[in-house]
């Protein structure tokens, strides 16, 4: 009798373990843990966080961890939008880097026209106007992509290729190709620190975005609708969902995410380089979605794991910047190797292998236990 319960409890422990492995969050969490352990071994002081005065005389938090969370902001916000687009359309938007350039350029177009010492209320009004305009512009470009995908049934990657190619030229054209640098210190608050607050502003913006999207998913049918459209568009149409509108909507949401990213990006350095701002960020955003274990072919999705995936990628990038030994020209190669490993580990094939192996061992143990009991 006692042995029997033992077997049962072991079985449930195994089940629990299996559940964890099957959980979408498993891979990003394992990747994060590995990176943490690796960094702790190579530099025990890696996670040291200090509260020090900045050049403006205000106390600010500093340290690798803060830097990673700060720098991952844009990627996390993008990953949210990209996950929704992936879910509904079964494809990815590769134009986000270029549209970030457009969004940032739009903001600067408004801000550059003002003198650096306008009073606070006027400044706030200008920032709000420039941000709203940038949201509208980005949402329109998102709608353009979405319309091509939803109404003209063009593959998302091909449809967004248009803006991927043209976006940076449009961004440059918005500002007449000027090399802009904003002198007003206050403009930098949104990408750095607000005086008196020790946490970088982009972190708050990111948290705000995550809360908003969580509320939207909780109180609306967006999750259900986009998943059902992604799994089977025609059957969801038969059930009264308009797949075209849902696809369009996800692209518009991504457009808004892009606007927020563009705003943070130009605020970080108070300037813009049209050809390289947010360079290759589309690849990182797609990777975040993939690392999160989401099916890139559309359908079910898990936003939490996409967000974790984004943090993993930034963690990796910062870790690589930290190493002196890594040569400039080979940094992408190192990144690629790690990414390949992560993707392979998270692939359904390897997951199934691990599970099969576990099941076999459980079966063998159970058999042995049964044999013992008989004897």
């Amino acid at each position, binding site marked *: 009798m006692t042995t029997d319960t033992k077997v049962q409890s072991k079985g449930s422990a195994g089940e629990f373990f299996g559940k964890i492995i099957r959980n979408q969050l498993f891979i990003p969490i394992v990747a994060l843990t590995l990176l943490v352990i690796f960094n702790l071994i190579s530099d025990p002081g890696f996670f040291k966080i200090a509260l020090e005065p*900045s050049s403006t005389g205000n106390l600010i938090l500093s340290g690798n961890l803060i830097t990673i969370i700060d720098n991952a902001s844009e990627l996390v916000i993008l990953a949210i939008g990209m996950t929704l687009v992936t879910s509904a359309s079964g494809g990815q938007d590769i134009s986000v880097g270029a549209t970030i350039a457009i969004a940032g350029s739009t903001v600067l177009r408004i801000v550059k026209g003002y003198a650096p010492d306008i009073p606070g209320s006027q400044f706030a009004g200008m920032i709000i106007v420039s941000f709203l305009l940038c949201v509208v512009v980005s949402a329109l470009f998102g709608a353009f992509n979405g319309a091509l995908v939803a109404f003209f049934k063009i593959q998302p990657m091909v449809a967004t290729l248009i803006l991927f190619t043209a976006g940076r030229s449009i961004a440059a054209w918005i500002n007449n190709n000027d*090399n802009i*640098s904003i002198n007003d210190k206050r403009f930098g608050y949104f990408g750095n620190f607000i005086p008196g607050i020790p946490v970088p502003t982009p972190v708050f913006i990111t948290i705000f975005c995550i809360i908003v999207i969580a509320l939207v998913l909780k109180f609306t049918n967006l999750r259900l609708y986009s998943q059902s459209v992604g799994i089977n568009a025609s059957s969801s149409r038969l059930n009264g969902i308009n797949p075209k509108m849902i696809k369009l909507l996800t692209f518009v949401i991504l457009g808004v995410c892009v606007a927020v990213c563009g705003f943070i990006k130009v605020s*970080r350095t108070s300037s813009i380089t049209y050809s390289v701002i947010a360079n290759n960020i589309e690849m990182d955003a797609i990777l975040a979605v993939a690392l999160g274990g989401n099916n890139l072919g559309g359908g079910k999705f898990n936003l939490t794991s996409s967000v974790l995936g984004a943090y993993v990628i930034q963690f990796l990038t910062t870790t690589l910047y930290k190493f*002196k030994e890594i040569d400039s*020209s080979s940094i992408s190669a190192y990144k690629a190797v790690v990414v390949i490993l992560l993707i392979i580990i998270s692939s359904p094939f390897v997951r199934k292998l691990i599970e099969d192996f576990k099941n076999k061992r459980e079966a063998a143990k159970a058999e042995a236990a049964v044999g013992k009991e008989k004897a």
Partner: protein
Amino acid sequence: MKKLVKMLVSSAVVAAMAFGMTACTSGGNPTTQATTKAPDETAAATTAAPADTGDGLIKVGIINNDPNESGYRTANDRDMKATFTEENGYEASFFYSLKNEDQIAAAQKFIQDEVDYLLISAAGTSGWDGVLEQAQKAGIKVILFDRTIDASEDLYEASIVSDMAKEGQQAVDWLASQNLSEYKIVHIQGVMGSSAQIGRSGALDTKVAAEANWSIVKQQTAEWSEETAQQIVQAVIDSGETFNVIYAENDNMAKGAVAALDKANISHGVGKDVIVIGFDCNTWALEELLAGNWNYDGQCNPFQASYIDNIIKNGASQKVVIMEEKGFDATTITADDVANYGI
């Protein structure tokens, strides 16, 4: 093959038309396209020196890189557009691409359009021999600007370039003249393999290898991007290593690096903890110099148009013209310098 036949036939037709038209309007005012082409047609046939078009304008075909590429290119393009105007006696056509193949195709088109001069800032160094030979056969003179190519010197009139290695050397010499007891340098590079990166990195690398008190704290490419530069410098600061020089290979990366310094309360500029070096002389960067926030900015002269104009009107005295380039020190820069050399 079919294409070739088609081309031959159509050019024959055009030639016949042109001669027919000249017969009709000889001496008359050259208004139709065919007549304005006629003098060129004969010039091309005899491979003589390019004759002016009927209205006395010199036709130039300008092939450049995308003006969005950088502030340098924008300034360069504006300079070209400001110089090659009708008032200055030019009829200019422009073509922009960052792709070598597209540029070569455009050059072929300009040759067919029978321009007098072909001005090229090549995206890549190879693959130009064929089209330059075509140009030579058609009696079109070629002037290279900003970028050189791997082709025989006979194929072009002149090449007007910046010496990136010299720019780097000037900056390194200036840095050496500061007589610091120790140089701990954070070196932020441009896109690896670009001529600006090779030239500007080369000078510094040589110096660091030669001097005992010069060391590189961090050498990393930010690919001309300010945000990446900011992240790299942030990573160095977070790792607790100390440094006293930021050597950024363009202004935007220097700006990103300075943003990271500001965050971490590390002072920079004239008489401060960290020396900041940038390149390209953007107006806003020179203003930073004027305010003493940065220490040095090396010029990369984008104003080749006046050199080209001079060569077209007075002939080339040498094959390779290296432009004069300055380096600005924050302690000596004046507001006039900012106005004159800022791009």
